[in-house]
């Protein structure tokens, strides 16, 4: 029996191998079905909870916080913007968007400059790099506490447009810089030299050559900056001061609002996030399309 197994095992594995590399012969290899199942499970685990919330936000006035679904209406969306008891959603949303815009601009500018600086090696470049990336590892809540403490120590009152900006940059900047490095790796320094050779000043080179070539990458950095800032909770918690940003507002609502208007808020913020991503990706696509289609392809 043992001997027979020993003989059979190689034969079986050869059969499996032959099966696996010849998908056309007997349909797809078995690995396809296993991996598909894993993928479906992954996607369900990733999006399932969110989809539950979106679905439950469309209940009517009888709606509760759990399934089953009761009715179908936009009642809780109306409730969200009309009822005072749900909190200052509109003000929080305003602050979050403004904060995200400030953070995005700073992230794009500093990531771009860091990208330019890191094109060549300089003394201490490794240390500077790890200092930038280090704040990714720091726990957000601790970092938030630290920023809050520091502001208190200096004697400046922390608000969403001061200390929160700083705390969020510790999160968005490392991401922005990493994206920028990836973008810069495809940037050929010969382009700059060619511009210099043709008489362009340093500033003209940046304006006419570097920025236009890097533009799609800069939009990607902006997208990162905006979405990371817009839904950042931990780093904002201790730094936003007396007025809440949207994620803080949602968190407060989970403590005292017990109606599906909480879910409605989740749906609305998600839609806004997706709109922004769509706008950014659309911009990148338009840029590339305009470049590619000045003339019909030959």
């Amino acid at each position, binding site marked *: 029996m043992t001997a027979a197994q020993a003989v059979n095992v190689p034969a079986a594995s050869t059969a499996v191998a032959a099966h696996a590399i010849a998908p056309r012969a007997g349909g797809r290899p078995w690995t396809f079905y296993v991996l598909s199942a894993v993928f479906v499970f992954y996607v369900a685990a990733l999006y399932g909870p969110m989809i539950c919330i979106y679905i439950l936000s469309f209940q009517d006035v009888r709606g509760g916080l759990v399934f089953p679904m009761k009715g179908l209406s936009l009642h809780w969306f109306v409730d969200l913007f009309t009822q005072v008891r749900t909190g200052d959603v509109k003000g929080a949303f305003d602050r979050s968007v403004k904060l995200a815009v400030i953070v995005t601009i700073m992230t794009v500018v500093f990531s771009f400059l860091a990208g330019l600086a890191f094109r060549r090696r300089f003394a201490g470049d490794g240390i500077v790099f790890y200092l930038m990336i280090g704040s990714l590892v720091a726990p957000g809540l601790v970092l938030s506490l630290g920023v809050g403490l520091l502001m208190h120590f200096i004697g400046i009152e922390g608000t969403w447009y001061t200390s929160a900006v700083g705390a969020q940059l510790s999160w968005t900047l490392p991401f922005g810089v990493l994206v920028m490095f990836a973008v810069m790796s495809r940037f050929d320094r010969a382009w700059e030299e060619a511009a*210099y*050779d*043709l*008489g*362009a000043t340093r500033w003209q080179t940046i304006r006419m050559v570097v920025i236009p070539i890097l533009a799609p990458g800069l939009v990607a950095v902006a997208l990162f900056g905006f979405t990371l800032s817009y839904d950042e909770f931990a780093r904002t918690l201790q730094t936003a001061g007396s007025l809440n940003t949207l994620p803080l507002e949602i968190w407060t609502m989970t403590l005292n609002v017990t109606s599906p208007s909480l879910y409605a808020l989740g749906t609305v913020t998600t839609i806004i996030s997706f709109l922004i991503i769509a706008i950014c990706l659309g911009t990148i696509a338009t840029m590339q399309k305009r470049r590619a289609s*000045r*003339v019909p392809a*030959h």
Partner: protein
Amino acid sequence: MEVGAGHIELAGLVKSFDGFVNAVDGVNIKIPDGAYCCLLGPSGCGKTTILRMIAGHDDPTAGEILIGGENVVGLPPVARRTAMMFQSYALFPHLSVRDNVAFSLRVRGIHKADRNKAADAMMEKVRLSEFADRLPAQLSGGQQQRVALARAAITEPRVLLLDEPLSALDEFLRIQMRQELRQMQRDLGITFVHVTHTQLEAIALADLVVVMEKGKIRQAGPAREVYASPKDRYVAEFLGGQNVLSGQVRTVNGHHAVVAAPTGSGITVPLTPGLHVDAGDPIAIAVRRDDIEIVRPGSQPAADTVAVSSRVTAIEYQGYFVKVMLDAGSNADFVVYVSERKFFNDPVSVGEVVFATWPVEVARLLR
């Protein structure tokens, strides 16, 4: 002394990137106005560094660069009136062909209509008009090179610097674009300095071939001189077409030296004027591959010829000639180029023992 606008002189040029090793190590050369000069050498020999220093993209550690008689060290490329064509052309990927060509006019603040007119005229010259609105990525390698040429030429430089301009092209296109470069140089009438590691490219194009090794010039001169009369072993081996044999000088008499050969009675070579040799010196001899004849053993060699007994190790058919490899040189390849007709009149085969013979006077002693 009055010199032409495109006359280049490098005097004691040194470049060190790290302070220890000299990438360019004391280069002195004069390139006449309107010449086509090729800097030839293996990668890392400093040829591109020299080009970049002439262009103003690197500053020399020491030495002077004179263009048209004035020292240009420290000046930007535009003030030098040089233009560089980069190895991969460095065309701006986001600009159309027209905007690429007009770029230097745009940075000078020339009005759009005027610069487009000038760019169109330049594109007409290099037959790019139909591609004016294309992006560089939509062009073939040869077309991209023409855009790079046009973009450089529109600045009206007195010197055009080309960094391995043909290396990005396939074999067929390379030969075609080689012609176009030479034609362009004649039309513009300006000095071209062209960096390459391809010997054939250099000797086909250049008025002045500068052979370099490890930051130093080994030999500079007209293509034929460098190819046919290499001064030293390095130049002979790098340019190819020569068999280099090494040995010890056995005797020296008046006009000839006899060098010990691995087989036979020694090889007689004419002395090179200005090169002193004594009996016992280790020396190298160069013999052109197409000056050698293969003779079967038994036939009497003519007077004043050298005959070296050897075995055929390989035969390669090359079309218009046949490359026969022998084991005559103990250390290096010993190759004979036999014209096709002559070879097939009486073909030798691999393994046969033959004599490689050549007239005494065609061999050269190398430094």
